[in-house]
């Protein structure tokens, strides 16, 4: 199916192939970067927005 989509997209030339390969490189590098990070660091980063307390307690800031 993917082959059909590519074929119906027109002439797939070397530029498209080179572009795909460039993207694969970007994707693989970013994936390696992401998965090589220490779990503790990832956890700390994920919780960064929550470090700052809300001026209002989220549970009490709405009524009704």
């Amino acid at each position, binding site marked *: 199916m993917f082959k059909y989509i*590519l074929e*119906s*997209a*027109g002439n797939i030339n070397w*530029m498209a192939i080179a572009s795909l390969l460039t993207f694969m490189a970007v994707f693989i*590098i970013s994936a390696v970067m992401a998965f090589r990070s220490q779990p503790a660091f990832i956890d700390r980063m*994920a919780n*960064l927005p929550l470090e700052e307390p809300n001026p209002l307690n989220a549970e009490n*800031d*709405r009524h009704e």
Partner: protein
Amino acid sequence: MAQVEQFRYDNAIVRKFAYATMVFGAVGILVGLLAALQLVFPALNFSTAETTFGRIRPLHTNAAIFAFVGNGIFMGVYYSLQRLLKTNMYSKFLNEFHFWGWQAIILAAAITLPLGITSSHEYAELEWPIDLAIAAVWVAFGVNMFGTILKRRENHLYVAIWFYIATWVTVTVLHIGNNLELPVSMWKSYPVFAGVQDALIQWWYGHNAVAFFLTTPYLGLMYYFLPKAANRPVYSYRLSIIHFWALIFIYIWAGPHHLLYTSLPDWAQSLGTVFSIMLIAPSWGGMLNGLLTLRGAWDRVRQDPILKFMVVAVTAYGMATFEGPMLSIKSVNAISHFTDWTIGHVHIGTLGWNGFLTFGVLYWLIPQLFRTKLYSQKLANAHFWIGTLGILFYAIPLYWAGWTQSLMWKQFTADGFLQYGNFLETVTQIIPMYALRALGGTLYVAGYFVMLYNLYKTIKAGSFQAYEEAEAPARVATAGAHKGEHWHRWIERRPVQLLIGSTIAILIGGMVEIFPMVMIGDQVPTIESVKPYTALELQGRDLYIREGCISCHTQMVRPFRSETERYGEYSKSGEFIYDRPFLWGSKRTGPDLHRLGNKYPDSWHYNHMLDPTSMSPGSIMPVYPWLIEDDLDNSLLPAKIMALRTLGTPYAEGYEEEAIADAQRQADEIAARLRKDGIDGEGLEQKEIIALIAYLQRLGTDIKPAPQAGN
């Protein structure tokens, strides 16, 4: 242990942008509703130049994108940036300059667009002095953002800030690239590139205005405000890293999918298609990351209107980013392009993704800023349901309208003739759908005003604290001496590295696609019979631009039998080499005009512009009486000729001195033909309509066989 420092978050600037978001959201959607109603009730064009659809439509798009979403971005960035970096903003002066500068630009747009001052590049319509002002304000924003990053107390940059950085650098590149123009006067310029090159650069910009103004900054907001509202961390921080790099790298390539089956070379179209399809992966990665953040909290989604808005926003993002790649497949695009399907698709993104995420953020942020409870959760829930219904009533009829119209355009009889040879039949068929769309817009507007009331009451009940006390350890002390300086310096350089990395990622796609088009001459085969416009035609063309005819009419006959049967020979890239700007358009509410020249007599055009229903009963096109009443202003004509010659149009040396006389000669000929057909009037030769007729009669005739005027 690092020393704990006291500082204050600047909430005053956040409040300013929040108010501006609320005000301009109302303006943007009300103007949009007017445009939607004009398609159902043409009388709502009010027979006035400034309120006609062609000028109202860019006002709506600019208000929605740059005034509403723009202020929404800045509201979210100024709030989250300070807290994620544990510092206040870099410069109060830059805060104020950014805020008031941006509002002044919006004011300038609100004045110039209705006046017909436009470059006609979609979403980049503003003329060059305003472009310069945008650049100045954008640079101020960048300096303020990077200044804040550099003085941060938090060593690491949360992923939301990566999205802000990528947004800033890409919008900078896009804004410069698509606004390379040569001024003729204070309010008129011509783009440096012409025809197919201009088209490629415009849609490289246009698509990425969606990508890097409506999407990446809002993804940054999603990564900050969704965890805040849900009170839980993002589902996968690792996924967000891959999401970021893959998204910004791929997005920039996808622009040519706006130009499938046009005169753009096939290789560029193919690249646009391939990368658009690939875009599903990072987009859905981001969407799933957002939705899965709510894992285990779905019970709260049922209760909390803020989370409801955010869930629908992220879902709309997912829908739009699935649909977009599908529309980029050539066989689907052959059906969808130039129809209302595109408009429906865009509004899933803007009403659903941008609108609902903004509403969720506002409902969360305003009580925080004013240290009070939201006035009414019931009203917020009511807004949610009215708004959701509004989106459905908006989009579904437009999908239906798009499919219906496209199928009608392509329908042949058993004998091989177009079944709906009169384009107007395909328009009147879908007017009920336009009415339903206007109903959807009305619901959305109604919900919006419910929100404004709710937020107003919340603000009244609360007490605003312009500067919020905070404390955090100083960053400098966290660099352990035993770790050595290298690590510390690397961290300090990291925002700069991110900036450079993002810039490289977004430049690759643009350069691969644009450089060959611009640098290699044979990408645009020239046609010997294609000549520059005459002085009068050029004036007429600028009137066509001023009136925003491009909002409803394309000038691009695609190589389909259904189009060559209806319009004539398909469009060739060599026909557009003197078109500054290109006017291919992106929507056919009316028929394509590229082969309009010599199709009708001059008098037909005269009467049609005066009252379209006189020539085409049932037409929803506005009336243009001012073209018949107003004299043509030729004062800029010599300067226009010189500017175009500078850009490469081969006008003979000295032609600028004869241009006005030459224009008058051609006007006299057209006026004489009109008089022969019984149309008279004082000073007919001087009127704007004459120039417009000259242009319309020239369209597509350079490669057209012998004139058929009068047939």
